[in-house]
């Protein structure tokens, strides 16, 4: 198999966001293999690259992996044949992929390999804001943090060649702010070298066991030590002889450029923008920092660069190094927050005053109108009394409304924690939940583990037929005979239910909850956000409405079901917004007063 040459074209200027810039960079560098597990904020790379692949007949092989561990292994395998490879996941996914990636540096790679990781300081689109910079040090791989879509494009396009030069994958971390930021990007096609892919046996490199692993570890450390002395990816502005230096990376780089204009003391500092964050380019930094009296490291999250600076240059710098003593290690660190901190530090009056905030009600997460999870959660809550029930929650759309589940930590924490809890909560009613994406990501093993350990547990799989939250990637549930699969694992019972018939699901949960063993209820209902979802629901031709004369204001539909298509007018009456209603019929089924009329059936179009 060979990768055909792409047509070389003139430079082009596009308005691209960070994800799109990465896709273009990969295309123009001749990426041949793309493996990923979808996750915000980098879930936008895959669909764009697939589109470009079709448009340009680029012959890229895609691996829509079921989890990050599989994706990482597959990407390493592709690279070992000489294929240029891109591996994409979000920050928490790096935990899953860490096992093979701990050793990719030992084995080395052949075809250039970029590992793109979406980070999320501030947890704007994630369950958490874990700082994964430490993995760069753990893996001993070069880490880049481009600060704009243009920089992402350049880094991606040129990163493959650097990766091949080093024989190591390159880590590229990108925040949600930069992924979703749109700016003008200048692209330039390059001519990928025509490659013959071939796996060349090299057992000294690829078999990493015992002393061979130790030997390859030593070689990796030596290679990275040389790299740190010979490679520096940084940009220096301002006078080099200023007593103060400010070091930035990622988001803070762009913020600082603007903040600098508001604080006179920062106007003439030496500004160092670290694009290559790991390893710390100590040889390049030494002449820039050795005569400083003060160094401020301005970065979000844990303070990775500050830590490296203090650890690796402690005996050669006399400057006072500041960082996390000034800036919080949590949250996104918005530009205004940084400006406030630095104004206070330098004794400058904060230059702006906004209007006072008003007590606007928080807009908590909700399920979408017609979401299958709406009926599913309603059924569980109706089946199990609030004071007694325990609901293990899981990552994904089913976790959007807060406080429906009792915990929410990571993928498959629902069934994971529940099976440890089960032996000790016989006086309570315990169920665990998870989506179909989570089930195939690792939940399958967790079910088997529960079976083998003779746990008493009801586990509900919410199957909305796609990995809905990250862009409706295909779900394995549409291809796998999951009923047979689960029965073969030895579950005590397997039952299927419709998310749009909560009364039936409620009865099923109540029944199974009293039994011993592992009972799996597979709750199906397609995501309401898929194209033409409205027409796919069974009451598509109806126009439901609430009859105010029958409504007892019990709030079951409004608060317990919490469908966003039901709102409350200024008179306190509940009403259905037909422009939003997806005609799933769940509210009609659960109303105790029969006050929700499905309306006259309209003729079929």
């Amino acid at each position, binding site marked *: 198999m060979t990768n055909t040459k792409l047509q070389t074209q003139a430079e082009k200027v596009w308005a691209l966001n960070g994800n799109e810039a990465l896709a273009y960079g990969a295309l123009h560098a001749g990426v041949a293999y793309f493996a990923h597990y979808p996750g915000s904020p980098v879930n936008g790379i895959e669909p764009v690259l697939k589109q470009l692949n079709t448009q340009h007949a680029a012959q890229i092989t895609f691996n829509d992996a079921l989890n990050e561990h599989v994706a990482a292994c597959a990407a390493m395998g592709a690279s070992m044949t000489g294929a240029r490879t891109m591996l994409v996941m979000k920050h928490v996914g790096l935990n899953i992929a860490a096992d093979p990636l701990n050793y990719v540096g030992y084995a080395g790679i052949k075809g250039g390999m970029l590992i793109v990781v979406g980070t999320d300081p501030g947890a*704007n689109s994630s369950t958490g804001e874990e700082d994964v910079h430490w993995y760069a040090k753990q893996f001993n791989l070069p880490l880049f943090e481009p600060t704009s879509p243009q920089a992402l494009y350049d880094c991606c396009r040129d990163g493959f060649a650097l990766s091949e030069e080093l024989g190591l994958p390159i880590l590229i971390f990108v925040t949600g702010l930069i992924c979703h930021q*749109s700016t003008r990007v200048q692209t330039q096609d390059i001519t990928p070298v025509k490659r013959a892919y071939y796996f060349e046996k090299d057992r000294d490199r690829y078999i990493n066991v015992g002393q061979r692993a130790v030997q390859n570890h030593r070689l990796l450390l030596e290679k990275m030590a040389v790299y740190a002395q010979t490679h520096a990816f940084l940009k220096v502005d301002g006078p080099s002889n200023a007593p103060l230096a400010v070091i930035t990376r990622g988001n803070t780089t762009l913020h600082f450029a603007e903040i600098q204009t508001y604080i006179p003391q920062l106007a003439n500092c030496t500004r160092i923008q670290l694009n290559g964050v790991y390893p710390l380019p100590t040889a390049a930094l030494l002449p820039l920092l050795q005569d400083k009296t003060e160094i401020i490291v301005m970065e979000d999250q844990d303070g990775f660069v500050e830590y490296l600076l203090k650890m690796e240059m402690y005996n050669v710098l006399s400057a006072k190094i500041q960082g996390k003593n000034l800036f919080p290690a949590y949250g996104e660190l918005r530009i205004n927050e940084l400006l406030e901190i630095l104004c206070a530090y330098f004794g400058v009056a904060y230059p702006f005053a906004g209007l006072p905030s008003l007590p606007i009600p928080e807009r908590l997460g909700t399920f979408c109108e017609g979401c299958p999870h709406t009926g599913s959660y309603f059924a569980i809550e109706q089946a199990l009394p609030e004071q007694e029930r325990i609901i293990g929650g899981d990552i994904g759309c089913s976790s959007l409304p807060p406080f429906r589940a009792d915990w929410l930590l990571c993928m498959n924490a629902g069934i994971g924690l529940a099976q440890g809890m089960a032996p000790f909560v016989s006086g309570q009613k315990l169920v665990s939940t998870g989506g179909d994406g989570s089930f195939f990501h690792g939940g399958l093993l967790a079910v088997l583990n529960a079976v083998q350990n003779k746990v008493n547990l009801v586990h509900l799989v919410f199957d909305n037929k796609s990995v809905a939250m990250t862009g409706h990637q295909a779900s394995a549930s549409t291809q796998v005979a999951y009923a047979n699969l689960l029965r073969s694992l030895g579950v005590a019972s397997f039952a299927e239910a419709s998310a749009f018939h909560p009364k039936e699901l409620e009865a099923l949960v109540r029944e199974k909850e009293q039994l011993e063993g592992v009972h799996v209820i597979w709750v199906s209902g397609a995501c309401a956000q898929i194209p033409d979802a409205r027409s796919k629901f069974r009451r598509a031709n109806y126009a439901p409405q609430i009859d105010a004369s029958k409504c007892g204001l019990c709030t079951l539909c409004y608060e317990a079901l919490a469908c966003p298509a039901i709102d409350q007018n200024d008179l306190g009456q509940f009403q259905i917004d037909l422009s939003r209603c997806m005609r799933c019929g769940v509210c009609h089924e659960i109303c105790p007063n029969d006050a929700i009329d499905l309306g006259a059936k309209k003729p079929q179009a």
Partner: protein
Amino acid sequence: MKQELRILIAGVGGQGIHGFVRVLQQAMTEQGYEFISARYKGGAQSLGSVHAECKIFLSAAQANAQQSSQLIPGTLDVLLGLERWETLRFLPFCHSNTLIVADTFTEFPPGTKRSKDLPSIDTYFVNLTNPLISRDFIQLAQEKGWSKTAVPILLFNEAIRSLGLTQYIQPLKPL
């Protein structure tokens, strides 16, 4: 003339804010202006709080300077509100002269108990002292035969007209 135009667009999931920002980006790029935006999609697919922060650089000097895509509260030129509660949520980004262009569409956070102490949305809007254009842009779009996606475009066009910027920025054309 202003060096740059700072715009915040606020609304709820499903109103097409991110799509509009892409349209605006493309239009400004075609008109020769640098544009930068930060988009926050919120934690919900539908009816969650969504906003985008945008800067249009009207001078070459500003365009060439490295800039954050985020806006500092109190520095906004225009607040475009597609939903009234969300419009009010972002008032701290405004200063006393920030132009507010707000659609009259109102969607109280679903599943939320309405506090008896919470004034009506109209009360808040009546008490605003900023330059304010409040109109039913959805109906206006319908009257013109345009789809819902035209609504943020109409708000934007209203803003640049009101600020006297049409000699620099061409109004966008709804489809």
